């Protein structure tokens, strides 16, 4: 009876997750969150534009398009590019604060240099890193490498482990965007180069 309950529970978790998600191997649109906005509000950043986001060495263009989870499951980047998804995430955070302005003299660029997701049985791990720059009138006023990572309990069952890996991996994009927009060095660069 206990074994049957365990099987049913695992199946239902997987079933409900898939039903709510529609399809596990897809990523939804980025969304700002309150904790990030409150932290970013402390920075009092001026309006900014988001510029060029692309893969940067050692990440290849192929790495930027997709990744594999549990060896055989392909996770395609939303819009065809993980670096583009990072750009959309930074833009979503700026927009939620009312600080996104495509015509602003300050322009944020980014090179995605690392994107890893490992959903091995036992412990999953994911990491994201990028080289960010802030330009004003084509002069670079800020350049910095930032990274974030996370780990989680990873199930034996792929039907449970794969959605968990996708969720933990995609959650890093907002963490990296918030880390950038709350970086004291970014604020210092903005203040040191007023219009």
């Amino acid at each position: 009876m206990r074994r049957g309950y365990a099987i049913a529970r695992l199946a239902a978790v997987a079933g409900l997750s898939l039903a709510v998600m529609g399809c596990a191997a897809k990523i939804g649109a980025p969304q700002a969150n309150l904790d990030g906005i409150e932290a970013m509000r402390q920075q009092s950043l001026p309006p900014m534009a988001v510029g060029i986001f692309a893969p940067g060495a050692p990440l290849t263009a192929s790495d930027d398009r997709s990744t594999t989870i549990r060896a055989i499951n392909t996770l395609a980047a939303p819009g065809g590019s993980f670096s583009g998804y990072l750009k959309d995430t930074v833009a979503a955070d700026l927009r939620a604060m009312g600080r996104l302005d495509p015509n602003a003299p300050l322009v944020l660029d980014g090179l995605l240099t690392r994107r890893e997701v490992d959903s091995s049985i036992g412990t999953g791990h994911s990491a994201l890193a990028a080289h960010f720059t802030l330009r004003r009138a084509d002069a670079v006023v800020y350049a910095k490498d930032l990274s974030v990572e996370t780990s989680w309990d990873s199930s034996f069952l792929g039907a449970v482990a794969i959605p968990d890996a996708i969720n933990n991996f995609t959650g890093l994009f907002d963490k990296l965007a918030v880390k950038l927009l709350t970086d004291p060095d970014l604020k210092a660069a903005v203040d040191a180069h007023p219009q």
Partner: protein
Amino acid sequence: MSSYRYGLKMLARACAVGFLSVLGACGTFYVDNNLHDLAPSERAAVANPKPVQLLFDFQTKGASNSRARDQLTAPVTQAVQDSAVFSAVSAAPAPSGAILQVTINNVPLTDDAFARGFAVGFTFGLVGTTVGDGYVCTAEYVGGTDAAKITKVERDAIYTSLGATASTPQHATKVKSLDEAVHLMVHKCVGNVLNDLARDPAFAK
């Protein structure tokens, strides 16, 4: 039987049952009765409703689930509007800087953190092939750029009975589909947690 062979057998059975569950071929769905949709007379009266910026996140075991978030943003927004706690609800910043973050976290009903929030055990009466999923709905509100955060939490559950011999969950309402179950859960959770928020004396300040 070796652990490897047992694992494969368990995986095959789980996938088969899970697949049927997704199709709804053998799944019957119930929503817990701990929360109910509020009648107008039960809703807190807000003297001067203000516009608010709504942020929503759906999580699975604490990790943001962007795909589910996309699917549930519209019903959550509708539930916030139906609550009448705010004069306008938008994804864009509100003039006052007021922000409402609604987070629904899907967790196992056996999770200690989830179970601690209940006076009545949600898993009571769950036997055989009837299983439950818990949902922790959290509303966080800041009334302006310098306002203190107010946090309220409500909990709900969806039960799934698999197969003809499954037990019927107690203290739960049967619904026609998983989609109806999720939408009912969302509307109840959001309505109740916003009512808790509106009743907080700090909310009107």
